[in-house]
Every structure is written in C-alpha cells, then in structure tokens.
C-alpha cells in the first residue's frame, strides 16, 4: 500500500475543502516525464539484496517474487539504484 493516483482531480472552487485538511496520500500527477534515462533491472543477475529498494529517494522500487520491480510512473531516473547495485544488475537506458 502506498499513495496512489486518483481519477478525481479537484479543479473547481467547490471541490476545494473548507478546512486546510485533505485525504492523505492523494496523488493526481505522475513524475515519469522528469526522466531522460530509465533504470532497467536484469533479473538474471539480481539476487534480491534490496539495496536499490532501500536507497531509492522516491521509493519506486518494490519487492516482487524475491526480486525487485520499478514503478516507472514515479521514477525520476536519478540513477542511485544503479550506483548502489553491487552486482551491476541495473543499467540506465535513454528514454526514447
């Protein structure tokens, strides 16, 4: 579980709450467009040490069947995951 993208985007004055509080974890935009390079995981080399999962500032790497996967909707392509991977199982590829 984590904050997730919603369909409803408040736009009009009546959609905006009267108080200064709102639902926690309410996301309406992705960050994918920030990226010029993307990390790609080679699952044959990954041993599931989770170093990339731990060090991702955006938390977009998640556990999956003993290995890891990336949520490309929110990855900004910083490349920290590639640097902390001791096995060299992550490479950065240019976005097309």
């Amino acid at each position, binding site marked *: 579980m984590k904050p997730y993208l919603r369909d409803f985007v408040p736009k009009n004055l009546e959609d905006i709450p009267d108080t200064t509080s709102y639902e926690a974890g309410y996301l309406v935009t992705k960050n994918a467009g920030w990226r010029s390079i993307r990390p790609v995981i080679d699952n044959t080399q990954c041993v599931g040490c989770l170093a990339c999962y731990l060090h991702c500032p955006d938390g977009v790497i998640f556990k999956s069947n003993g290995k890891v996967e990336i949520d490309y909707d929110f990855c*900004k392509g910083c490349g*920290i995951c590639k640097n902390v991977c001791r096995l060299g199982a992550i490479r950065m590829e240019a976005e097309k």
Partner: protein
Amino acid sequence: MAVNAKTLNETEFFYGHKACAGCGGSLAVRIALKVLGENSIAVLPAGCMSAVGFNFPQLCFGNNAIISTFAGTASMLTGVAAGLRAQGITDFHAVGFAGDGGTADIGLQALSGAIDRNDDILYICYDNEAYMNTGIQKSSLTPFGAKTTTTPAGKNIRGNLRPKKNMFEIVAAHGISYAATASVGYLNDFMKKVEKASKIKGTKYIHIIAPCPTGWGVKTDETVDIAREVVDCGLWYLAEYENGQYTLNYRPNQFGDVAAYLQKQTRFKHLTEEDIQTIISSRDTKWEFINQNFH
C-alpha cells in the same frame, strides 16, 4: 534484531513527491517514516520537504502530516503529542522533519524549549547544508568554504567563512534523552537509530546528512556515495548521545581523501590548497575532541 531492508515496512509513506531527482532529504524522510509506521504524525516546517510533499491536490504523505511555521516545528510537535494524549491515544510517534535552516537557525529556540520540557517527540534534522528550497543560501550548518548565493566565491573571499554549527553537541548539552548523528550513506545505522529513538520516552533528536545534488553540485546518482564519503573522510561522524555519554558508532580505519571529496562538488571547486589544509586541520581538531570525549 534491528530493522533492515528485508524486515522494513513495505508501505511507502512518502511517494510521488516533487523533490529533485536524487534528493537525499526525501530519502531520509521516506526511510524514517517506513521505520516509524503509519501511526506517525509528521510535522514539516517551510523547507524542501513540505514544498515537495504538499502541492494540493498532490499530497504525498501516506500518514498524517502537517505544515508548521518555519520556527515552530518543535512547538507544533509538542502540541500534536499533547492533543493525542488528551484524546487517550498512546500508540503514536510525533515526528518532525526540518532542514538545516529550520533547525539550526530559525527553529532552534522552539527545539530548545521542547527539549527543556522533555516532550515525547522525535525531531529529525535533514541537513543539506544550506537553504536549498529557496535557491541555496547559507545557513549556520553550511560548512567552511562552501559557495552559496549569499557566500559567493570571489577573489578575496572564497565561499563561507564560518565553520558548521555543532548542532549535535548543542542539543546534547541540554541533557536530552537521546540524540544521534547519521548519514543517508549509512542507512542501516540511521534505521537503527530511528527505531531506538521511537522506543525512548522524552525528546529525541537525529541529525542526518542528506546531500542535495542541486546545491552541492554533484550528479543525481552520487547522493548516497557522497554521503558515505563525507563520513569516511572524517568531515562527518556517526555518533549517539544517551545518559550523559557520547558514543562513536563508526570509526574509519583510515580517513578518506578530503581533497577528492571536496573537488567532486562544484560548491567547493574554488578552494585553494591552503583552504583544504584549513578544513583538514579543523577535522583533526574535531577528532581529537571525539577521541577524548566519545566512547
């Protein structure tokens, strides 16, 4: 057993935020919240993490979170803790995330007051060594020699003239329940300290070095490496303060190359050989103190 990558809460509490790619501060906030869990109430003053986390309707905290005044992180934490206590709620962590400016300059008085009252709060300072959110101005935690927009590097004066304020020992001098220093380059150590702090009653303070690629002038993928390097070359240290005693958690066998660490960052590019020697000798003085007073 201490929490690690395998046992860490899989929920993300800080997600979809608009921090720069490779942001060290957002990594510190994300990891701390994963250790503390969903019953944590986060208080954030003006600063990078509130600017990137609350862009209505994009609300990136999955737990309860609130923006405080710049000076009032610690006093709002006091209020949060008192309010929940009054409702009979006991299972919570009131946690604050303030930057270096919000802690060592603007929020220092409120923090000092909270420690004096020994309120049951956890205050985490993510230290990126300048006011990064407003465009890199010097704070009192900016190290000697660093170039910022208010301490430019010119012919006569080369960057910041003053050393970094010793926040950790200032906080410890209050006789605080628990204080610690950390680095995003050593996350296992940081997680251990957050977990330990969460179990202690009273005021807790953790000071974590969180490099800022934008302000430090390093590549976005170097955040974690540079945060390790600053500890390895002795310009930062991992320590704890508890029961009136300082403890050093990590001693590098041999200090890394200070000049190499500095020259990697554009904020230190202008430093002369003499400036680097000044930094090295102040590091050695610091470590003499550490060797004498830390266990």
